[in-house]
């Protein structure tokens, strides 16, 4: 592609004249760079696709100018242009706005990550062959992919989700699991309410001072160290499957809590 291509673009009001000037005056190297950049984008814009894919990181010296033109390209969306080209395998990438994705799209070997200067706000969406490429469905697709990504994360958290396939089944599992957890909490709190007088009894056993009203609700003071010391044996990322080790751990927590309350009162004396 050469300058004629660019001029054609200009006629389509996609490129501003000053862009051409920049390209023309700085020689072939600029042109090559722009060409590789535009080569990706011309098809996109012509198709009436969303021009969101055109955000691109250039070299830092030319950053301001070229990003301005990039912005220009992004703004000029050819709404009326539904010139359908017979597409070979042309993919638009569906990604989040991360710096690594910017790097990946670059054809140039010497682009630096000047992403701290500019944060791109565009969402990159991948359209497969034969799918609608208009703006709405692309946004829809991006949204759906985000949701399915989150569902996959949930699959790891909720036990038993691996066997079920399909979103509906998984959602069912998740709902059941949350409900059962909430019921468990309710049941345990009911149990606790029955046992509360005994709790009092245990505390008295430790020969603590009875004036507990001075004990503030958000006290966390002396817990830090003694809890940590009891955690050396348990593995850090313990999930619900290894609930036995967690039981031990939390018991240690509770025991330390009680004795720490005692120590507090001793020090208060």
């Amino acid at each position, binding site marked *: 592609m050469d300058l004629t291509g660019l001029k054609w673009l200009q006629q389509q009001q996609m490129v501003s004249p000053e862009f051409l000037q920049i390209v023309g005056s700085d020689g072939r190297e600029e042109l090559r760079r722009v060409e590789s950049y535009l080569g990706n984008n011309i098809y996109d814009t012509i198709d009436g696709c969303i021009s969101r894919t055109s955000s691109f990181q250039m070299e830092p010296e030319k950053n301001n100018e070229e990003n301005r033109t990039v912005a220009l390209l992004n703004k000029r969306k050819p709404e009326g242009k539904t010139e359908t080209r017979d597409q070979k395998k042309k993919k638009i990438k569906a990604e989040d706005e991360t710096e690594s994705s910017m790097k990946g799209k670059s054809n140039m070997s010497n682009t630096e990550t000047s992403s701290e200067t500019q944060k791109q706000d565009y969402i990159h969406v991948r359209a497969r062959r034969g799918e609608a490429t208009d703006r709405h*469905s692309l946004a829809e697709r991006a949204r759906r992919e985000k949701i399915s990504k*989150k569902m996959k994360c949930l699959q790891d958290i909720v036990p038993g989700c691996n066997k079920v396939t399909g979103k509906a089944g998984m959602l069912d599992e998740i709902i059941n699991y*949350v409900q059962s957890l*909430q019921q468990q909490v309710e049941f345990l*709190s009911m149990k606790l309410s029955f046992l509360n007088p005994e709790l009092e009894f245990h505390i008295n056993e430790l020969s603590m001072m009875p004036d507990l009203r001075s004990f503030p609700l958000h006290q*966390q003071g002396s817990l830090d160290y003694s809890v940590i010391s009891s955690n050396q044996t348990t593995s850090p990322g313990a999930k619900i499957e290894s609930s036995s080790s967690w039981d031990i751990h939390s018991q240690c927590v509770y025991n330390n809590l009680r004795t720490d309350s*005692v120590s507090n009162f001793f020090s208060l004396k």
Partner: protein
Amino acid sequence: MERQIINKKKRVFSVEPNKIPPSEVFTRKYTSLLVPALKKLNMNKNSSQVNQLTVKHEVDMALALSAQEFAWSRFLLQKLSSSNNPTTTTSSSSNGIRIQERSGKEGGHEDGEREEKLRELQKLLPGGEEMNVEEMLGEIGNYIKCLELQTIALKSIVQDTT
């Protein structure tokens, strides 16, 4: 007893405090909040029996306060503080952002089923009805984790007192 305390204090200095995984932080916070609250309940209500609702209230409050970095905990706190007042407002179910998907590749009623389930999930999560779908799915993960830790903590407390 005193010697035990002193021994435990001696063990303090052997561990680096920076390596605490967040689940332990949560459990620690939770138990540290709940147990004094329960003690306080006992002290204040010596004559009358400890109500189950108040215990549930304290349990929920401890959960919300120990998970303050998540969005659902804010909603839970709101609910709890509003339920303290006698004028409780019923939760509005129609207020939420509707889950709607435009024509996609899937069939029509498959979408409807999914929408229903997502709506149910929203009801389970505190404040879920005011979030949109993506946000809610992320928050549900956190909520489930915290619920699990809460059940473990409660179990250990109950076990200790029996």
